[in-house]
């Protein structure tokens, strides 16, 4: 899918009315099948950028075009169809705790399933081999029938990525896919993701805190700072000076390859408390 942002400004979803916009007059073009990494310090607006690209939030100014059409000018049904062709993988894996991994992964395919097939899949998963293959790419094939809340944080994050592999999407928007993974697993996961995106000619836009991974794995790197474009270069042309300017006053995040890994097991589901009859 081709992306075209022209002077796009947007507010953070939870911001108050008078707050400064999270994105300011951004101009950006991503060709179909490209792989782009977005880096920048916290608060730069990376998540907001992904949400605007995913048509989850209308821009407050400027124009967004996906494959040449303005999604916000489309009628609802057409917009829903357009959304079915993209996938936004949030930083916190959107997996219901008591669901099994196979159902959680196959839920990514819902835009392509009819009503009856979706209902049937709840009782008996329709495409077990596809889910298995997707999980195998992230080294989780043996967890196919486990419950999501029995997985560790890193495993859940990889399941969230596996969802993208079964979705009927030509645009993958991935928010911080490596925050809960240790360096070895990070390398494996990002390699799988980029390879799959290239093989399927899917446009991939990923936000990353791990600058070294971004520079190593992605052909094109975008630097975002305070909602504006700091640079938009092929990875080979990004110099330490660029990075220093991008992360000035946030140097600790630049060293963030050593950031603490958030690999906590899921919190147990609290039982329902009912007092009265």
């Amino acid at each position: 899918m081709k992306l075209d942002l022209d002077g796009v400004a947007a507010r953070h979803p939870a911001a108050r009315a008078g707050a400064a916009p999270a994105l300011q007059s951004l101009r950006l073009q991503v060709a179909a099948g490209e792989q782009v990494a977005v880096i920048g310090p916290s608060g730069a607006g990376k998540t907001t950028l992904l949400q605007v690209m995913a048509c989850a939030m209308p821009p407050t100014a400027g124009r967004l075009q996906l494959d040449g059409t303005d999604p916000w000018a489309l009628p609802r049904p057409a917009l829903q169809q357009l959304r079915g062709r993209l996938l936004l993988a949030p930083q916190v894996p959107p997996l219901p705790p008591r669901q099994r991994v196979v159902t959680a992964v196959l839920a990514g395919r819902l835009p392509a399933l009819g009503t009856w097939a979706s209902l049937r899949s709840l009782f008996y998963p329709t495409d077990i081999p596809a889910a298995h293959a997707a999980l195998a790419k992230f080294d989780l094939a043996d967890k196919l029938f486990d419950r999501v809340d029995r997985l560790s944080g890193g495993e859940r994050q990889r399941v969230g990525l596996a969802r993208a592999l079964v979705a009927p999407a030509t645009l993958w928007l991935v928010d911080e896919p490596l925050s809960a993974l240790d360096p070895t697993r990070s390398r494996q996961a990002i390699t799988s993701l980029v390879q799959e995106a290239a093989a399927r000619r899917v446009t991939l836009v990923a936000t990353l805190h791990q600058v070294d991974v971004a520079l190593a794995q992605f052909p094109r790197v975008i630097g975002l700072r305070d909602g504006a474009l700091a640079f938009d270069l092929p990875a080979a042309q990004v110099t330490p000076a660029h990075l220093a300017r991008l992360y000035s006053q946030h140097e600790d995040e630049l060293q963030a390859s050593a950031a603490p890994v958030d690999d906590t097991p899921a919190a147990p589901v609290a039982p329902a408390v009912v007092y009265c009859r």
Partner: protein
Amino acid sequence: MSASLPAPPQRDPAWLGRLFWISAALVLLWPLGVASEFKPWTLLAPDNLKVTGQFLGTFLPPAHSAEFLLMVGREAWRTVAIATTGLVLALVLAVPLALLAVRVLSVSALSGRMARGPFWLRQAVRWGLVVLRSVPELVWALVFVRVVGLGPTAGVLAIALTYGGMLGKVYAEILESGDAHATETLLRNGASRSQALFYGLLPQNASELTSYTVYRWECAIRSSVVLGFVGAGGLGQQMDNSMKMFNGGEVFTMLAVFVALVALADQVSALLRRMLG
């Protein structure tokens, strides 16, 4: 990353289990339907429809003569009065029993296991509360109507006993579920049980206790209408009379007044709980 993919599983292992439970539920449903003579289509049988239609026809116009409305208002007040009186007596019963039943106030348990005597006393009180709570209030009312005759006394006593059991059990649960540290410390340092109660247990749990009591008051109003059907006076008794005479207009007015009363009590209860909690 494994070069050869492990063979994908062909079947969902949870399927047999699900099939079993669904079949078991269906098999159980059939005798339940038979035992409760569940034939909802009889509602549409011509004779029944005729009677229903006639009855519904008498609903309008609702009875609205001044003396009828005055009577309804008086009976509505009686219903509230029965509920309030019953609940006050229930408190008189519940508070000492709850205090007797909590382990938190046990002096013998401070140093290891509770002594035999106090343990069995507490168990006995708990079982007593369970028995009080298990007998439906209508049954108490039927029995008391035999002893003290028709009128509000039977209703008040029935509510007092049942709600005494309910309140006692929930009070005990609330008192035990809080943090016992403050109370235990007071007892260890030589405070008497009542001092530990007023300086430790009560301040901690007061808002929850009052919140539940106010909620139960609203339930008691509904109970007292039900008790009216067996002769305990109030709105319920009048509704029973009107229903037996197929006087839909009166039933409609009384139902409307009752629903309004419950809605009012619900609002008051929510308001009180917000102010107290």
